[in-house]
């Protein structure tokens, strides 16, 4: 299997005045292309922190993260924004949909950002028409073909989470990072969301990294690792 991400000796500490809180203490982990990896661990152990660093929302204190041999810890702020836009999809515990936009527009948002960046370099192979077609197809994939023009407030919790998954996929990212995607919905709905996830993984061969407390979710993953005391347990 190809390695997509290589995490090498990753450390992360939070500083509050003079006191240092060591959260990640040398994480080493390879993540393979197209796998569904679940990360488990006790509350407060640093799962979200690791995911944020993988998603370039935060920077590590030391260590490196290679995405296909590119070390993202060396990227500039601008490169990171563009990297997040192109290579990463996020799904959070709380759906984080934009309330002023319809489901379709929420899904399209990442592509619109991409187009606005591309416009500067006069690349016109992306256009809004195909954006909304792609967004619609993704919403169909997650079973929301009938909900395109609904606003988040008009959707159920599970539907919102499925919109969030569709949104994460709009730019065909290398990896989708999900932080407790089913943490806020009931069991039955979580199963539906997970079905969607799995279906997409099979069809689009996207890599998923899922932080979860839910052992049933972990069971459905290709591989599960556990974070213990700032390190990946063997």
């Amino acid at each position: 299997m190809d390695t997509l991400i290589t995490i090498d000796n990753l450390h992360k500490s939070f500083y509050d005045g003079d006191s240092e809180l060591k959260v990640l203490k040398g994480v080493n982990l390879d993540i393979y292309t197209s796998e569904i990896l679940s990360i488990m661990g006790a509350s407060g152990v640093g799962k979200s922190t690791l995911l944020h660093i993988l998603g370039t929302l935060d920077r590590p204190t030391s260590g490196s993260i290679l995405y296909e041999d590119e070390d993202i810890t060396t990227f500039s702020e601008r490169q990171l924004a563009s990297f997040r836009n192109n290579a990463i999809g996020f799904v959070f515990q709380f759906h984080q949909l934009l309330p002023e936009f319809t489901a379709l527009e929420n899904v399209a948002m990442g592509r619109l950002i991409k187009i606005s960046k591309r416009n500067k370099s006069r690349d016109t192979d992306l256009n809004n028409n195909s954006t909304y077609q792609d967004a619609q197809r993704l919403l169909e994939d997650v079973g929301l073909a009938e909900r395109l023009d609904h606003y988040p407030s008009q959707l159920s919790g599970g539907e919102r989470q499925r919109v969030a998954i569709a949104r994460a996929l709009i730019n065909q990212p290398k990896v989708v990072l999900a932080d407790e995607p089913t943490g806020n919905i009931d069991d039955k709905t979580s199963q539906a969301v997970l079905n969607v996830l799995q279906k997409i993984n099979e069809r689009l061969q996207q890599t998923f990294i899922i932080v979860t407390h839910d052992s049933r979710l972990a069971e459905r993953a290709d591989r599960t690792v556990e974070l213990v005391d700032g390190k990946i347990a063997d």
Partner: protein
Amino acid sequence: MFCLLQYDNLDYMKFDWFVASRYLLSRRKQSFISIISIISIIGVSLGVATVILVIAVLDGVEHGLRDRFLANEAHIVLRDFGSAYFSDYDRKIEEIKKVNGVVAASPVVYSQSAIFRQDNNNIDAVILVKGIDPELEENVTGFSQFVKGSTGFKDTRIIEEASFINDVKITGGIVLGSRLAFRIGVNEGDVLRLVVRMVEDALNPDSLYPIIKHFVVIGLYESELTVYDNQIAFIHIETAQEIYEKPGQANVILVRLEDAERAPEIAQKMTEPPAFDKIQMPMTTTWLETHAPLFAALELEKIATVIIEALIILVAAFNIASTLIMTVMEKTRDIGTLRTLGSSRGNIMRIFMIQGSVIGMLGTFIGTALGLGLCWLLSTNIVRPTPWLALGLVVFLILIQIVIAIRHLLPYAKIRGIGFTILWVIAIAFGLYCLVEPISLQELGLSQIYQMNQLPIRVNWFFVGFINVLSFVICWLATIYPAWQAANLNPIEALQYE
């Protein structure tokens, strides 16, 4: 695929505008924010509208005054030191006319006299007597166009007739300032007595007795400039020379130029060699110098107006800033989400700057339209503001408000909001107009120097443009801090913001 069609035009719509416009138009959870943004729009519009109106009035006054000064007065007045009399004015005038830019020149004998009506032994007024050569004067000030009656100062028929009726020796005809004539109660055809000088009594050296000359009023001078209409009288220069005992002399030469604006430069030329060697008139006063204090006061008033309006706009800009700061707080989670989706800090910054700028632009635009509308109202005289009209407007607005308050009659919140804003801006501005307009004529002291029955309006398009740019720039600057704050939110903290 209806829903797809409506997105076609988004191809050219940048992401920033897409998000910003949705935020601007969306139904707000916190209606407080939209109230503040409406207040900011009203503030900006009122600032812009009033500055446009006030400056148009001040400009109008200035130009009205200029026009009247230029119509009534010489562009340059030449004197000898101490207004001394000189005799070779014909030669001097020939030399003056040779100066480049000079159109005409005329000699004048200026003096002062006390006047009595024929039936009165008390002094009615002390006036400025201007002895002129009617033909030469006509080319310099075109004075006859302001005279109601005759300008035949030496018309023997009129003089003999008046002489016969009143049984006195009439020295000549006199044209009186219209207000002066009204004040002392004389009319065309009446006889007026001028005290031209005092003579020592040969028998009693302690007492003086006056030399009195009789004049017949042949016309009234109405320039609409109170300074003149209230205190001036015209007689023939030869008569003046005779009664004031200055035969063949004058004490002032009036000059008209092709271009009045060049007066300072040409006046300068006249006091320098080689022109001066021939003209020999060392004291020059241009019309601009004569009225410098007035023009300076108007200029000051304009500057003060602009500063006050800039402050009004500034306050409105603060409103915009606070609206944005609250919007940023309300949208913190959205900002975090947008960052995870890959929008840069620049994107976030622009999204909020666009929102503030649109508010500023809307305010500026409404204000400009309103200011120009009021200018038009004032200049056409279609609507005369009265307290009743203002009251009627308030009643009308209250009715509208009641109608709007019944929500179902107007389905769209946005339209209601915008409609509200525009109505209130118009109402407040019109209220101000009703209050300001009737007093402003007196307040400005204009009726004293300038008899106007209507505010003069002159819209300076360059200035309107300038105010638009100024207002927009102020509003735009106000957006920078909140937008910068939004752009620098930590995405992780923003995502977790409650």
